[in-house]
């Protein structure tokens, strides 16, 4: 028995269809019928249901995200912006860079290893589809409490999946984040970033232009991966006994295929054979064909029988919705088809001509001689529903803000200060990340200049000039819970600062907005505030948002995660040979604190780690101060005045000093100008700690004065202890003893030196 088709749909207008099971509302279903002038076929229903899903259509977020365009600062740096697969930034010398971060939260909870692995694969194909060579990845990870039973399942699986996929694909992992909070226990956040590099001329478009041009699907075969929704349809409309067929809801990744796909695409691009290109991610063939058609000449004819299948029992709805990994779709002129297929063959990649571009304004698909899809493509791709969801600031917000951290017991004696620092250093969110980062290849491709545990990742782009790019991602659910507007600006400011401390100039922003259900007005308020904060912040910092990703429905029951926008900032470094790392140099460099320190402890690591407290206002963002700080850092770096620079964030100056000591393998002696508790543990924004070359201190002080950046020489490097005069001291060994064992103790062994193995 064959499935549904257009003729049948016209003939049986009242046949009940499982639109609700596919996630469509009654209104949305009615809208599809109005668009088509009949009921949709099963294949069309499948297509609309995925294209109009929150994930693909941004229907709840769109009205807010527009601010990234309307408030965008003027810039000449953008070659392509929002709406493309990823934004493209001009970094000079004829080079352009594209970067994007995307969530794979839900799959990573269900099946941590494959969920995280395919998250990397998906974002890499996004970057590839712009015409760029992917050159690095980063990942921002958030889990439930570090000692929770389920975290021991999820975290090693996620890290192993990223390691498996990224390492085998040959992309250096140059940084990211790792944090823990009870709010993520049922909703880990797995956000993967990829960055790619191209020459200006290499930019590709995701559009099917030129009637008669061929649409070629290449890469892995299409199988029954990630089509939980379509199986609802299959069982509702097929009566061949396949109702019970179990389909995996999580896709399986093949990084080897992805590596071949990358090389194959880049070779085809370089040969000038490709008119349009689109990666296949969420909603697979459905999304790729509708988006290509909608963005191009407006029509496309697709022969679904030509799609290479891993499982021959798949019908049109399943073929359309399958999320099988490692696939791309190219639009190729007929005269180039042979050469294109030869390049695919060289890389052992299967390719099939599955359709052609038309000028009919319709996307039609046939299967076994019958037309199963006949729609205007824009109706699915661009003209989906848009919602103005109700927004309401929750009453509980006032109580949260009123719960000030002021009365929490503070350290008083030197011993208590010392103990506070060691407790923070040992806390899972601030502990050494080597257990994770040692599983990632940071060296491959040979251009990694800085990687974790540095503040930002830094890549060399051009060997002769030293041109490079810096990248950082940051998030802070605690700040954003207290105030999503300010919290998001603090996060943006931190990523901006993390790029600036390498000596790079921040240029552009991407984001991954992780929130609870948009149907909850309180969540929608958090979302609206966060987006407003980010758009306003970017306008002040003069860096545009080039793209992003929204992940809603991160909640367990009715309890949402903390609002957690993860912000990525990209900067350009004029000469990576002058980069600044966080490690203190040997004896005698002057330690200078830049920025203004106020008693700001709301949402701080001190309040959270030492007291399990979350309340009050987060620190005050000062974006003008961030701009001035970044300017000083860039100038000082170019003039060679500094030996190291480290941003201050969670845990304040105390953590920054300890990290710089440990990274550099040298101690320091500092004298604080005021109340040691505030100076050591406040999380005031727009601050960094730098070391200044012994003979350039006056010049640096003048530079800070010229930029009106507050600067305080607080001590010098040397010795093998962190000494805070009149307060406490701790040896490097003691700092390392607190910092390093935490994650290995929680997640197993020091990574490959189990007891009883041979020594040399």
């Amino acid at each position, binding site marked *: 028995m064959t499935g549904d088709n257009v003729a049948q749909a016209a003939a049986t207008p009242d046949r009940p269809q499982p639109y609700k099971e596919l996630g469509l509302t009654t209104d949305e279903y009615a809208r599809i019928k109005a668009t088509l002038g009949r009921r949709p076929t099963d294949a069309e229903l499948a297509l609309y249901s995925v294209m109009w899903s929150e994930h693909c259509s941004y229907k709840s977020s769109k009205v807010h995200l527009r601010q990234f365009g309307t408030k965008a600062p003027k810039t000449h740096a953008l070659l392509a912006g929002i709406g493309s697969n990823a934004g493209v930034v001009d970094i000079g010398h004829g080079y352009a860079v594209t970067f994007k971060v995307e969530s794979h939260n839900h799959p990573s909870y269900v099946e941590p290893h494959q969920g995280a692995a395919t998250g990397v694969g998906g974002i890499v194909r996004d970057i590839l589809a712009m015409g760029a060579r992917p050159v690095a990845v980063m990942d921002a990870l958030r889990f439930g409490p570090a000692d929770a039973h389920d975290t021991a399942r999820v975290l090693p699986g996620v890290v*192993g999946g990223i*390691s*498996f996929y990224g*390492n*085998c*694909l*040959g992309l250096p992992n140059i940084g990211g984040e790792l944090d823990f909070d009870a709010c993520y226990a049922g909703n880990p956040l797995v956000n993967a970033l990829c960055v790619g590099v191209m020459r200006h001329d290499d930019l590709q478009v995701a559009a099917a232009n030129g009637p008669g041009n061929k649409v070629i699907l290449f890469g892995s075969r299409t199988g029954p991966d990630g089509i939980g929704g379509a199986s609802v349809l299959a069982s509702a409309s097929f009566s061949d006994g396949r109702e019970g067929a179990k389909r995996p809801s999580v896709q399986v990744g*093949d*990084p*080897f*295929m992805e*590596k*071949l796909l990358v090389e194959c695409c880049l070779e085809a691009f370089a040969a000038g054979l490709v008119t349009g290109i689109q990666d296949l991610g969420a909603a697979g063939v459905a999304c790729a064909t509708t988006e290509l058609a909608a963005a191009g000449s407006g029509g496309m004819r697709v022969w679904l029988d030509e799609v290479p299948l891993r499982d021959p029992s798949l019908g049109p709805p399943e073929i359309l919705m399958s999320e099988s990994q490692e696939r791309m779709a190219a639009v190729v002129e007929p005269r180039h088809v042979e050469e294109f297929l030869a390049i695919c063959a060289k*890389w*052992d990649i299967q390719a099939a001509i599955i359709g052609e571009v038309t000028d009919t304004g319709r996307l039609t698909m046939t299967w076994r001689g019958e037309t199963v899809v006949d729609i205007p493509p824009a109706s699915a791709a661009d003209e989906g529903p848009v919602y103005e969801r109700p927004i309401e600031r929750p009453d509980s917000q006032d109580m949260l803000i009123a719960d000030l951290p002021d009365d929490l017991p503070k350290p008083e004696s030197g011993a208590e200060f010392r103990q506070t620092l060691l407790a923070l250093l040992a806390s899972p969110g601030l502990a050494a990340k080597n257990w994770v*980062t*040692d*599983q*990632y*290849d*940071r*060296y*491959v*491709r*040979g*251009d*990694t*200049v800085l990687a974790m545990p540095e503040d930002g990742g830094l890549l*060399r782009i051009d060997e002769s000039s030293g041109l490079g790019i810096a990248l950082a991602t940051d998030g802070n659910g605690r700040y954003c819970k207290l105030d999503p507007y300010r919290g998001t600006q603090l996060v943006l400011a931190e990523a901006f600062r993390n790029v600036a401390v390498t000596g790079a100039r921040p240029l552009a922003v991407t984001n991954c907005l992780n929130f609870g259900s948009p149907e909850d007005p309180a969540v929608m308020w958090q979302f609206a505030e966060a987006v407003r904060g980010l758009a306003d912040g970017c306008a002040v910092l003069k860096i545009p948002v080039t793209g992003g990703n929204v992940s809603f429905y991160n909640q367990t029951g009715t309890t949402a995660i903390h609002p957690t926008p993860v912000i990525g900032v990209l900067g350009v470094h004029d000469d*990576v*040979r002058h980069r600044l790392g966080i490690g203190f140099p040997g004896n005698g460099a002057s330690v200078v604190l830049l920025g203004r320190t106020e008693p700001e402890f709301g949402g701080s690591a001190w309040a959270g780690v030492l007291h399990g407290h979350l309340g009050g206002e987060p620190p005050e963002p000062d974006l003008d101060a961030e701009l001035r700080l970044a300017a000083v850092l860039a100038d000082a770096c170019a003039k060679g005045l500094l030996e190291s620079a480290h941003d201050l964030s969670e845990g304040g100056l105390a953590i920054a000093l300890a990290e710089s000591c440990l990274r550099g393998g040298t101690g320091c002696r500092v004298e604080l100008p005021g109340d040691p508790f505030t100076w050591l543990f406040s999380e005031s924004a727009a601050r960094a700690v730098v070391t200044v070359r012994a003979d350039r201190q006056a010049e640096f002080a003048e530079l800070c004065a010229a930029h009106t950046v507050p600067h305080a020489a607080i001590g010098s490097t040397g010795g093998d202890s962190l000494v805070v005069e009149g307060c406490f001291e701790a040896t490097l060994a003691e700092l390392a003893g607190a910092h390093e064992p935490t994650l290995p103790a929680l997640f197993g*062994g*020091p*990574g*490959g*030196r*189990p007891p009883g*193995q*041979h*020594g*040399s």
Partner: protein
Amino acid sequence: MRVGVITFPGSLDDLDAARAVTLAGAEAVSLWHGDQDLRGVDAVILPGGFSYGDYLRCGAIARFAPVMGELVPAANKGLPVLGICNGFQILCEAGLLPGVLIRNAGRRFICRDVTLRVETANTSWTSGYRTGQELLIPLKSGEGWYTAPPDVLAALEAQNRIVVRYANGTPNGSTAGIAGVCNEAGNVVGMMPHPEHATDSLTGPSADGLGFFTSVLTAGATA
């Protein structure tokens, strides 16, 4: 001097190896796994990566590549060959080197800078080092535990064919701390750590690895 770098499907560090060759002052020549042709090169490097995804035993498929049909007899006649990481695994699978690389003892991928001790300078790829010299070089592998039957290990020791060892304890379980070995003639060397990632202190932990690539220039001249 011309040094070939073979690209297999899934090779990842081929560019890095070629860059190291260039830095050492030789000409890097790209070789393709599917060609039965060594293009007249004076030495060959099998780079790191995951040939064929390493979904089977590492290197087990790559050893059957057409280019290997040319490489094996040439190596047996004295052509200097260096296998790095996946390249080492391929050389073991191809029978040019004894032993095998198995899953790390910790069962996790390890990317870490390790200190190696040069155990013999009497190979085509280590002649520029001193025996006993220590090198800081990145290790990055999931299947880096070198092992071999006891008689083979004994022979390697006796014939001075352990080229480099981990100086501060084995990071991956590797038997007797072995990080690299060579054939009897000393022209074929395999090692798990990546000297091509330690040729410039800007992008690596040191420049200690450059010596492997400069050593072969003199070895190649006399080969």
